[in-house]
């Protein structure tokens, strides 16, 4: 009976294809939403784990979090180097991790920092060693995999935070040396290049306390540099009038030692300095709330499409049953039971739904893979293409149920038909 159901579907290819396409689009939309919502939420939570507060230049707190924690936006500006000591000296602060941004390697952000960054994310070395000197770099696992770089190899960074054609300016005069590669962590660290923050200053020719690298040079700063904020006039949060390039940081990732920190540190930063303090948990929640409304709208659209697909199957099968009443009556006369004829019609609905669900599922995951390969933001979000969720199984089951439900009335109609009367009539 399944082969007969498939034969009937093939007999009206256009209608069947349209019904499959409708269901496939709805399944693809819903799977994309599930994947995006789940993976993005999980990713944001994982990347922000252990970070209670982010201190950076004044501006949008969300932008500060996105740039300093998730590495998917431009920094709000720079902050003075001595802010690091200020926070590290505070007894309520367990850890303050410095971040200096400005360049990229093959589209992967180079993060100037110190050993505390790896400790924050629990990152371990897969090969080589950690950096000791400026211009030494440790690669995240994804960076090493994508670029093929490894310990002992040198690379040249490009100016800017992404691999953009028009923004790219190579720093051929100041090559980095890869000294280590990290094991995969499933966090943003996998897609970062870590180096001492002095490297960022050296590459841009900014003087600092440590012995200056031989590669240091005068460099026209651009947006996002630790030495050159992207907003004119906000060169430094503490030295607003200085125009000479200074050794600065982009942000600090702070972990409290105790609950008192949560009460005191943000107030201290926001009221007593020209910097801002942003809480990743609340900014992430705000971001997910903002996204949530849009995602909900798309989810409703997805289910509407699924219902439309179900209605299309219903109409197609009802017409089929009407036009092939004789065929189906003949099956009964030849020996098919009522249940077999009923199942043939029901199977047509279910088979349509199976094809729609399968096509939609593969399309959704294929789209994620394609988008990940072509859009840096999605890649940076760490969306994985072929990681099905348990909810997807429920979704597919719901669509199959919809197909069966749509076929139920036409199938019941043929179940009740008096085969002899129909054949005698003709």
């Amino acid at each position, binding site marked *: 009976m399944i082969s007969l159901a498939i034969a009937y579907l093939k007999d009206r290819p256009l209608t069947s294809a349209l019904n499959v396409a409708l269901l496939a689009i709805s399944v693809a939309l819903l799977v994309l939403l599930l994947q995006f919502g789940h993976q993005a939420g999980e990713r944001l939570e994982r990347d922000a784990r252990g970070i209670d507060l982010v201190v950076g230049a004044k501006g949008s707190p969300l932008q500060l979090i996105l740039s300093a924690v998730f590495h998917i936006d431009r920094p709000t500006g720079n902050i003075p180097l001595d802010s690091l000591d200020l926070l590290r000296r505070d007894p309520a602060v367990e850890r303050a991790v410095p971040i200096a941004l400005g360049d990229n390697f093959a589209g992967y952000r180079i993060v100037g920092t110190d050993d505390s960054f790896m400790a924050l994310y629990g990152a371990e070395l897969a090969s080589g060693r950690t950096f000791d000197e400026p211009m030494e770099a440790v690669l995240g696992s994804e960076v090493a995999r994508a670029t093929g770089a490894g310990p002992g190899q040198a690379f040249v960074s490009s100016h800017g935070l992404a691999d953009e054609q028009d923004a790219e300016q190579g720093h051929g005069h100041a090559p980095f040396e890869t000294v280590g590669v990290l094991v995969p962590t499933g966090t943003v660290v996998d897609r970062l290049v870590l180096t001492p923050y002095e490297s960022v200053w050296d590459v841009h020719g900014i003087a600092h306390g440590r012995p200056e690298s031989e590669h240091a040079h005068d460099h026209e700063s651009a947006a996002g540099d630790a030495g050159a904020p992207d907003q004119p006039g906000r060169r430094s949060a503490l030295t607003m009038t200085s125009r000479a390039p200074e050794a600065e940081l982009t942000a600090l990732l702070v972990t409290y030692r105790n609950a008192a920190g949560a009460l005191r540190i943000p107030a201290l930063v926001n009221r007593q300095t020209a910097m801002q303090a942003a809480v990743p948990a609340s900014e992430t929640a705000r971001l997910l709330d903002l996204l949530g409304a849009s995602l909900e709208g798309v989810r409703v659209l997805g289910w509407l499409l699924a219902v439309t697909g179900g209605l299309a199957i219903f109409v197609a099968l009802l017409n089929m049953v009407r036009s092939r009443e004789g065929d189906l009556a*003949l099956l009964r006369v030849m020996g098919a039971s009522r249940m077999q004829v009923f199942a043939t019609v029901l199977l047509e609905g279910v088979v349509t739904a199976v094809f729609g669900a399968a096509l939609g599922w593969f399309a959704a995951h294929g789209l994620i893979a394609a988008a990940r390969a072509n859009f840096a933001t999605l890649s940076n979000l760490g969306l994985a293409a072929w990681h099905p969720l348990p909810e997807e199984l429920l979704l597919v089951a719901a669509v199959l149920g919809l197909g069966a439900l749509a076929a139920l009335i036409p199938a019941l109609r043929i179940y009740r038909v008096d085969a002899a009367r129909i*054949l*005698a009539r*003709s």
Partner: protein
Amino acid sequence: MTTLCVRDVALSYDGRPVLEQVSFDLAPGSRTLLLGASGSGKSSLLNIVCGLQSPDRGEVKLGEEAIAPARSAAAADRVRQRHMGIIFQTLRLVSALSVRGNLLLAQKLQTGRRDPALVDSVLRELGIADRAHARPFALSQGEAQRAAIARALVVRPKLLIADEPTSALDRDNAHRVAGLLLDAAKASHASLLIATHDERLLPHFEKVLRIERGRIEEGRITA
């Protein structure tokens, strides 16, 4: 020993008699024409013989198995499925399947198993082996007629029943189809019962059942 035994069958619609005291026998391997004009009651009689309709009175047996009155509709269905090959006036090939697919489906439904070798053999005998994979809409009227006959034969029936098989055909084709049915019935050792109003078929048959106003007049064709 008879293949089909019809005794005192009566049927009426809304008090109007359609069949009255209809009785006849078909011997194994016999070839019989049920001849009658439109409205004479032959379609109703054929439906009763096939177990598609129950008579008001009388009994119908295929061998020793009762078709009417049957213990249940399912029992009558089983007799029909196991022992009858039916060729409908409108042929009724399943449009979504190829000719071969139609034959295999009929085998599966009526006998519970597929016999592709028998299907291919019947298609060859009827001269449509080269159209085995064609869909019904791609067949000529003659090819479709042969396909319908083939479908009735592949279940190895005891009784082959055809309802108005020549109604839409010209004289030459009518004789050709009649010859085809006779040959097919002979080859499969089945009794043949053709219901028709087409008197052109008379020369092909040794026995004729004339039905008029619901009554049967049995005759033997000698010409």
